[in-house]
C-alpha cells in the first residue's frame, strides 16, 4: 500500500510540477462543449435535449487526449523499467497510475461538467445523476484507457492508434452515462443506469490492471 501511495503522489507531483496538463484537459473540454451551440444553433430546447450526450462525448475525448502520456514519459526515460523491477506487482502500479490519471482528468472534468451543463441549459433535476454518472464513469475511462496506452507504447502514430483501440471500448460507458443523466433530466429513474455504470467500474477495476500490466511487460521485453 505504501508503494501505491508513493507512486500515486509521485505521478500527481509530476503532473502538477510540469503544470498545464490538467488545465489543458479542462480547457479542451470547455472549448469543445462551447463549439456545440455554434454548431447546432443557440436554441435552448435543442441544447437541453442534446446536452447530456454532448457533455459525455466531449468528456470522453478529453480523457482520451491525456491518455497518451499515461505511460509514455516513463517509457521514454526508462523509469518504467525501473518500476517493473520493483517487488511491487505491476498490476498495483498500473492501478496507481490510473488513480493519478483519474485525479488529473476525470475528477476535474466532473467538477467542470455542471458549469458547462448550465451553459447548455441542462435540466436542473438531472445534476445529481450527471455528477454521479461522471464519478462512476470517468474511472472506467482511465482504466480501459490504460490498456490502450500500454498496448501502443512505442508504436508508430501511437495517438491515432490509441483512439482506434480505445473508443470502441468506451461505447458502453457512453451509453449508460448518457442514459443515467438523461433519465434524471426527464424525471425518470436513473438508478438502474447508475448501477450498470457501477458494474462497469467494478469489472474494469478488477480486470483492466491485469491486461494493462501484461501489455506493459510485452512493451518492456
Amino acid at each position, binding site marked *: 500500500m505504501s508503494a501505491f501511495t508513493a507512486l500515486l503522489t509521485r505521478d500527481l507531483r509530476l503532473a502538477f510540477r510540469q503544470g498545464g496538463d490538467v488545465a489543458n484537459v479542462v480547457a479542451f473540454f470547455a472549448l469543445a462543449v462551447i463549439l456545440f451551440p455554434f454548431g447546432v444553433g443557440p436554441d435552448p430546447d435543442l441544447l437541453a435535449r442534446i446536452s447530456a450526450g454532448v457533455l459525455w462525448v466531449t468528456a470522453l475525448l478529453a480523457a482520451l487526449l491525456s491518455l497518451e502520456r499515461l505511460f509514455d514519459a516513463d517509457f521514454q526515460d526508462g523509469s518504467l523499467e525501473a518500476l517493473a523491477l520493483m517487488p511491487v506487482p505491476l498490476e498495483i502500479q498500473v492501478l496507481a497510475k490510473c488513480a493519478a490519471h483519474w485525479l488529473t482528468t476525470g475528477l476535474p472534468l466532473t467538477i467542470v461538467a455542471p458549469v458547462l451543463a448550465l451553459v447548455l441549459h441542462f435540466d436542473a433535476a438531472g445534476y445529481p445523476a450527471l455528477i454521479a454518472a461522471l464519478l462512476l464513469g470517468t474511472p472506467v475511462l482511465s482504466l480501459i484507457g490504460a490498456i490502450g496506452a500500454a*498496448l501502443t507504447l512505442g508504436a508508430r*502514430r*501511437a495517438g491515432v492508434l490509441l483512439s482506434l483501440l480505445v473508443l470502441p471500448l468506451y461505447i458502453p460507458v457512453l451509453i449508460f452515462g448518457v442514459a443515467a443523466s438523461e433519465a434524471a433530466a426527464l424525471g425518470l429513474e436513473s438508478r438502474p443506469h447508475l448501477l450498470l455504470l457501477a458494474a462497469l467500474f467494478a469489472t474494469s477495476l478488477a480486470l483492466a490492471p491485469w491486461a494493462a500490466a*501484461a501489455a506493459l511487460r510485452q*512493451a518492456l521485453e
Partner: protein
Amino acid sequence: MHRFANPARFMRLSARLLPWCAAAAAVLIAIGFYGALFLAPPDYQQGEAVKIMYVHVPSAWMASFVYAVMALASAVALIWRHPLAHIAAESAAPIGAGFTLICLVSGSLWGEPMWGTWWVWDARLTSVLVLFFLYLGFIALANAFDDRTRGSRAAAILAIVGVINLPIIKFSVDWWNTLHQKASVFVMGGPTIAASMLWPLLVIATGFVFLFAVMLMLRMRAALLRAKVRALRFGT
C-alpha cells in the same frame, strides 16, 4: 499441439487439406444457395426479401466465430509461445473483418425494405459495429511496430480483451428489446424457424466454415512464405 508447431509440417498438412476443404466449401455453398434461392419458400410477410437471410445470418455467425478463433489463437500464442498461433490470429483477422462487413452491409440492405431504414442504433447492430472496429484495431496494432513480434503480442492482448464483446453481441437482443429480431435457431426447445428454411441456412453456414478454413490456410501459407523470403533476403 506442439506437433503442429513446425512450419514445414504445417505446410505439408495444409497442402494436403486445402483441396478437400475447398471442394467441401464449394459443394456446400452451391447446394445451400440452390436450396435457399429455389427450394425454400418465400416468407409470408417478407416475401422474397427473406433470402438475404441466407447471406446475412451465416456471415454474422462467422463474424463471431472467427473472432473467437482469433482470440483463442492469441491466447495460445501468449501462453505457450506457439509459433504458428500468432500467424493464425493475424491471418484470421482480415477474414473476420470481411465477414463482419458482409454481415453489416447485408443487414443494412435487408433493413431498408423491412424496417424502412438502412441503419438503427439498435444494441445488436451497435455491438457488431464495435466488433468490426475491434478487428480493425487488431490489424492496425499488429502492424504498428517496427518490431513485428511486439506488434503480434500487443494485438494478441487486445484480441483477448475484446472477447468481452462476444457475449454482448449474443445476448444484446435479449437484454435490450429493440428492432433486431431475437434468436430463432439456437434456442431452448429447438429452432422456431421452418425446417424448409433452416436446412439451407445450416448448409451454407457449414460451407462458410470450410470457406474460412480455406482462406485461413491460404493466408497462413502466404505469411509463412513471406517470412521465409524475408529471412532469405535479409538474413533475419
